[in-house]
């Protein structure tokens, strides 16, 4: 069933397209403004409309119906069985991207005579890449937390309904989310930051590896430790081996390396048992 028509959201401008392109080709080089433009671009594309088989769907609805439902369960199941999540996940992720591209051609969802379908395929592939990357990181974290003996409750990624739960995990009554990059802090709406902690990571270009760290509400951090140094902008730290505190949108946050955070949480849980 071919795509019949596309209606792009009003407001999708060239700067949004450039931000999306940059995030695909050279994400590290994106400026703060381009990162902001990318978030807007994704919001605008999610709400753009596609008409298919007499049905009018948003791009987000299209993705959910034809991509998420078709591929995510099997991707997550493969990751959960895998011993090498990162390497195996990257291979599977790319394989599915190729499958989705082939499906777009076969079903005429991507049509050369309808140039707007470029935005649909670019959005779906981008979004799949983002979802798959997020699931890979999440499973790595869950596996590491379990191995460390930390007590936590996590949503079940095998269940579609649970994948969209309010929080990814709860530890000692604190709710948290796992984010594969710090993009979520680029949203200047602190009301969106509703959890007690966020496990995330940054990329180290010189070592070509990720460093995991945790951003936590200071009141939650005070529960488990309390000692921090203030982050003095714009002289930021080179890593988070010492917990640093900063104010953002009227809320005090603490950024700390994942390893230190995990050690403190384990101590906190052990103290609770005594």
């Amino acid at each position, binding site marked *: 069933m071919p795509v019949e028509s596309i209606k792009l959201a009003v407001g999708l401008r060239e700067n949004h397209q450039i931000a999306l392109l940059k995030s*695909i080709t050279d994400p590290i080089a994106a400026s703060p*403004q381009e990162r902001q433009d990318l978030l807007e671009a994704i919001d605008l594309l999610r709400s753009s409309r596609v008409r298919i088989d007499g049905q009018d769907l948003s791009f987000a609805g299209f993705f959910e119906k034809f991509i998420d439902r078709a591929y995510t369960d099997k991707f997550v199941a493969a990751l959960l069985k895998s011993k090498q999540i990162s390497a195996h996940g990257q291979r599977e992720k790319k394989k599915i991207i190729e499958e989705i591209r082939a499906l777009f051609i076969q079903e005429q969802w991507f049509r050369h005579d309808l140039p707007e379908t*470029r935005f649909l395929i670019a959005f779906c592939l981008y979004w799949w*890449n983002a979802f798959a*990357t997020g699931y890979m990181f999440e499973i790595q974290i869950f596996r590491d937390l379990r191995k460390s003996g930390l007590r936590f409750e996590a949503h079940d990624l095998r269940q579609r309904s649970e994948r969209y739960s309010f929080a990814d995990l709860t530890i000692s009554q604190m709710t948290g989310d796992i984010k594969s990059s710090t*993009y979520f802090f680029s949203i200047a709406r602190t009301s969106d930051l509703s959890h007690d902690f966020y496990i995330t990571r940054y990329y180290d270009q010189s070592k070509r590896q990720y460093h995991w760290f945790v951003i936590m509400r200071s009141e939650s951090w005070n529960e488990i430790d309390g000692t921090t140094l203030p982050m003095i902008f714009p002289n930021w730290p080179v890593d988070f081996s010492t917990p640093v505190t900063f104010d*953002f949108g009227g809320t005090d946050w603490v950024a700390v390396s994942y390893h230190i955070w995990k050690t403190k949480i384990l101590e906190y849980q052990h103290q609770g048992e005594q």
Partner: protein
Amino acid sequence: MKLKAIDKMTDTEFDGLLDRIGQNDPDKITLPNFMETLWALRSKVATNVIELTAKLVDDHLEIDAPEGIAVRGNEVIVGSHRIILRWSNA
């Protein structure tokens, strides 16, 4: 290199773009990237307060600044700003 918008690309250029998806993690963000963004947004949503204490000792000022703020004599360096403090009894 100037990027061409999606709707202005040739078919070959667009196919090349699709080939690139999946080669990079989306939103690959370094620590400086994160801090720059945080700093840029923070400036919009909050006022950054740096507290300094200066006291007059004999005929010069002694400045006590938080860690990370450079002090040279009566000058305080904050990022690219050089702030000069002068004392006057007028």
